[in-house]
Structures are given as structure tokens and as C-alpha cells.
């Protein structure tokens, strides 16, 4: 397999361009830095603990808000720790949920140790087996606009696996205050009465 060249920061920036009222969950580790690097946004919820929970936070939110689109942006290590969640999403078939995995085949936060995908474990096949309605694999920035459209309009559940370069760009830390981030998100996204 040739090394991936896709820049994760550029890809996430294009994915979240003109995001409107898209609700975004940032998975533990590097994906949260990537989301934060796009600029603070009240409709971001960042996860700083409970590795493996991001897809389920997305599911609970998508079920609660069928009027909104929900994007979970997470990493290969994070999704591997909660692999059963993909099967649970497959049962519920939320039309408005997309899981985006930035797969660099490494654990970036702990020193770039190889992850299971590095050994060829195939998350795309897992997502297909878990009945995701649209499953896309890409390694090229040229498809970013198409992926952005999937987040906003695609029939879900959508699973996007982006093979990104195994680097560790400068970390961009959003707030670590879970209460504050929660209330900001809830106030900004509250459903009109």
C-alpha cells in the first residue's frame, strides 16, 4: 500500500466549509484538534474522555434531532475502541448521521504507534457489514467537496473513511470545560418551541 498523502487539516477544513447548522462531534484526540483548527463554533461538541464513544454520541444526537444533520469526525483508533457502535447505528439506520474516520493508521495522541488498520484491518468492510447506507473511501482532496455534500444531504447513515497522511500537525486546543461546551452547544442548537 502506498503511503497516504491526504492532509487531514485541509480535508476537514473543506468538509466543514460553509457548514450552516451542521452539528459536529469531535472524537477524542487528533480529530478534535482538526475540528478546532477550523475555528471555534458553538455547534461543535468536543470529547476529551471516554475513548470509543464518539459514534454513539452522534447516534443519540441524530435520534434526538431528526431535523438536523449530524457529523462525527473521529479517528481510526477511536472508532476501533467502539466498533460495536457501528452495528448499533446499523440497526437504527439514522438518515441524518455521518461518521467520518480520519484514518492515519496510527495512534497520533500517544506517539504514533501503528493501529489495527495499519495491519490491514478494513473499516470500510466493517461499515458495509454494519449496514451503513453509503460507505465511501478516499485518499484525495479532490473528493472533499463531494464528501461535504454527503454530510449535508446524503442518505444516511453515511460512513466516510479518509486515508490521511500519518503526521502530527500542531495541536489546536479548544476548551476543556465539558459543562461550558455542552451548554454552549445546547443553546446554539435548541429546537424552536
Amino acid at each position, binding site marked *: 500500500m502506498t503511503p497516504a498523502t491526504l492532509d487531514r487539516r485541509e480535508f476537514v477544513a473543506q468538509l466543514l466549509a460553509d457548514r450552516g447548522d451542521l452539528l459536529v462531534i469531535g472524537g477524542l484526540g487528533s480529530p478534535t484538534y482538526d475540528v478546532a483548527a477550523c475555528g471555534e463554533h458553538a455547534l461543535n461538541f468536543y470529547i476529551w474522555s471516554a475513548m470509543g464513544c464518539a459514534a454513539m454520541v452522534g447516534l443519540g*444526537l441524530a435520534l434526538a434531532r431528526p431535523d438536523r444533520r449530524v457529523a462525527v469526525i473521529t479517528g481510526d483508533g477511536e472508532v476501533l475502541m467502539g466498533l*460495536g457502535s457501528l*452495528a*448499533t447505528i446499523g440497526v437504527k439506520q439514522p438518515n441524518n448521521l455521518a461518521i467520518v474516520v480520519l484514518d492515519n493508521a496510527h495512534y497520533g495522541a500517544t506517539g504514533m504507534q501503528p493501529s489495527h488498520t495499519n495491519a490491514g484491518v478494513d473499516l470500510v468492510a466493517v461499515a458495509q457489514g454494519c449496514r451503513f447506507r453509503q460507505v465511501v473511501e478516499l485518499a484525495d482532496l479532490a473528493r472533499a467537496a463531494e464528501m461535504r455534500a454527503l454530510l449535508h444531504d446524503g442518505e444516511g447513515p453515511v460512513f466516510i473513511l479518509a486515508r490521511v497522511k500519518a503526521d502530527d500537525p500542531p495541536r489546536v486546543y479548544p476548551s476543556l470545560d*465539558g459543562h461550558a461546551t455542552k451548554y454552549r452547544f445546547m443553546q446554539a442548537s435548541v429546537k424552536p418551541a
Partner: protein
Amino acid sequence: MDGRTATTAAHAHSDVAWPDRIHAHFKRVGVRQVGYVPDTGHSRLIKLCQADPEIVDVVLTSEAEGAGLVAGAALGGQRAALLMQSSGVGNCINMFSLLANCRFPCLVLVTMRGEFADFNPWQVPMGSITEQVLKLCGFLTYRAEHAEDVDAIVGSGCDMAYDGNLRIAILLAQRLAGHRR
């Protein structure tokens, strides 16, 4: 003789009714999502939730998925509850940190194993530490020993969890919830 018959009938009646009492409290406080792993003790409550058009039931592969579901529901303005066996509590420990870190409200109903006439002694190591584990994870814990306790305890638990953004766990005794030999 008549008195004994009446007592037996009352117990039989409340044995059937306690899951219905829990479901009624879910309706009263507006629980809209219920996450669970299939379980004998919770089977009636699970069926009630599945049949309820106002409740989305989410069957999980592991109890560990439940905390994320609760957090996501709360972010979306909905109340969620979790149903699990005592063995499942151990699967959740690190995931419960999400609820504590962000003060998400959570009600967990736990059917106990390994404490009364359980055919399987392998349930004892987890069952015997379940309540302590929940306390260490930041839950207030309450215990229902008898069917007639369930209504008041679950009612109070619902109010405390959702009005106060608290983590509340209610242990349903094995003597009440089944799983006997």
C-alpha cells in the same frame, strides 16, 4: 387462609406491574430514548419501550455504548435512560466519565446478578461490587428490594436525575428481578 390468598395475589400482581411502573415514570418525565442490552429481568420493560411510539429503543452491543447515547440525546434536548444487568456496569466505567465531565443527566436501572439464588456463581465478582463501582463513577445509588418499592424509588430517581443533571442508578434486587435457577 383468605388473608394469605390475598397477600399472594397482591405480590403476584405487583410482580407483573413493577416494569409498568418504571415505564409510567419514563412517560411522566418525558424519557425519549432508552438504551439496553437484552436482559431477562428487563424483558417486560424493554417490550413496553419498544411498543411505545414516543420512545426510541436502542439495542446496544455492549452497555459501554450507553453513556455516549445518553450524552448525545441530552445535547439534542432529549432525556435518555439505560437498562442493564449488574455485569454491564463494569463494561461502562471509563464511558461514565463522559457523563461526569459534562454533567449529563442519566438514569440507569440495574437488574442485579450474583446476589440471590443465582444459578451462576461467576456472576458474584461483578455483582458484589456493582453498587460501589457506580458510586465511584459518580452515581447516587438506590436499591429496590420489593416490587412495591419500585414506583417511589424510580419516581424519585427520575426527578433527581433529570431535574438536577445528576447520575442516578437504581439497583433492582435479584430477588425482585429474576434470574433464579
